[in-house]
């Protein structure tokens, strides 16, 4: 494969010219099935970068291209899991998950089939009639993942998806993400402030600087993809390496 799925070239974003740029010359590319962790100081513009990738904000300059599965260089679809899940409190679990399909006017029987399959795959089948407020944090996150995957996006974008969860739940959901990657060869970008999460979930780890945010280093993480990674020495070595990179001024 010689064409990257996601190609980000020299992206800059300035909100107020007096304050200088928030994002300054960000570039990277990802091929299908590759995963990227973006890590950096809080408030450095990681979320802004995701908003630009999702098409919810425009970059001031630079180029973002997500290649569609049909070969259209800018026709790729994305799903975006916002911080704090972004579930709609007035819709049930089922309605939340099937919403994307409904908006695309997918056939009802097909929508039901896809939605139910995802719900049972993520082990939340019994919760389909509940409202988000009746769910635990981990369950909400499962619903958010199911909703994001329902439309089979070319790329999945996640903004600190597991940061509000307790440690055990977080690890279980990280395992689920890895399973999803193994079964579907998902391409995803995850923004996180946890070094451990970045190493566990990213084949590449993009370390950003403080404002104005630039790419500091792009680490290739060859340990990625192993579910038992958390107990291995190479994992700790990698975590130490990333941490050191973050500390360099």
């Amino acid at each position, binding site marked *: 494969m010689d064409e990257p799925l996601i190609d980000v070239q020299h992206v800059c974003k300035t909100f107020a010219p007096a304050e200088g740029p928030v994002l300054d010359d960000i570039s990277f590319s990802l091929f299908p099935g590759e995963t990227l962790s973006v890590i950096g100081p809080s408030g450095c513009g990681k979320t802004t970068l995701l*908003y630009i990738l*999702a*098409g*919810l904000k425009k970059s001031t300059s630079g180029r973002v291209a997500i290649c569609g599965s049909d070969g259209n260089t800018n026709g790729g*679809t*994305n*799903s*975006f899991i*916002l*911080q*704090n899940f*972004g*579930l*709609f*409190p*007035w*819709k049930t679990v089922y309605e939340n998950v099937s*919403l*994307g399909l409904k*908006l*695309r006017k997918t056939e009802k029987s097909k929508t039901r089939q896809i939605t139910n399959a995802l719900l049972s795959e993520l082990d939340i089948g019994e919760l389909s009639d509940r*409202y*988000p*407020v*009746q769910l635990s944090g981990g369950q909400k996150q499962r619903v958010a993942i199911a*909703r994001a995957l329902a*439309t089979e996006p070319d790329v999945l974008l996640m903004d600190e998806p597991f940061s509000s969860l307790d440690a055990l739940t977080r690890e279980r959901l990280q395992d689920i993400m890895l399973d999803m990657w193994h079964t579907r060869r998902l391409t995803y970008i995850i923004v996180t402030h946890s070094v451990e999460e970045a190493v566990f979930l990213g084949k590449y780890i993009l370390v950003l600087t403080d404002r104005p945010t630039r790419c500091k280093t792009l680490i290739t993480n060859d340990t990625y993809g192993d579910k038992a990674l958390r107990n291995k020495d190479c994992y700790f070595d990698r975590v130490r390496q990333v941490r050191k990179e973050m500390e360099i001024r």
Partner: protein
Amino acid sequence: MIQRFLRYATASMILFIGWKLVSFFLSADILPPPEVAFVAFAKAVTTAEFWSHFIASACRVSSAMALAWLCGFPAGILLGYNRKVDRVLSPFVFLTYPVPKIVLLPVFLVLFGLGDMPKILMIALIIGYQIVVATRDSVKGLDIKYIDSFRSIGGTPFQTIRHVVIPAAMPHGFTALRIGTGTGIAVLFFVESFATHSGLGYLIMDAWGRFAYDIMFTGIIGMSLLGVLIYELFNGLEKTMCAWKYLESGRSGAGQ
């Protein structure tokens, strides 16, 4: 459910005793003791005359509230959602909002005749304003993350209104309706005291003129009953249409 009933029963008892005491110390015909008023009311509900007044009032106030909702809720959504429309129209809304609309009743009577039309329009105008303002503010206060989240799923602006803005504004619209019920019944009384021979407001004013205080209280109790029924109707509708809201706050019922 039983607890709720007990709470209501206790409150009714206290109100009853309070009324009784005030009536005892006033010892005037204008405030008959509660048992006299309720006996008169019990007698009245067996007559067709009372129900014709009750139904006339119920039709006026419910059609007015329906009209207020049908105009006010969409207008509030539009003002809250579309910044351009809001910038142009909101000054009109907020300049005219504090004007007491009830003073326009004579104008309405001349413009729309002496039938039900001016009465319904007057109530609808007053409640409609409250619904517009409450709905607009709720849409303005909607967390942007819901709109971003919806757009990221691929929703168009029209679908955003249908799936995000309207459901989020619904509970606020119902609150406006519940508050509007009190206002609506008050305005109903006022508009029914002019140029009509039907409705509970007419019944009250007519009985007052004839010093028939027991009948006057029949009208007053009837009007209260009408208010409670409409209020409970909105409570019930909200519980079915916005079930999520009740789960969210752990409330068993709004406004109780």
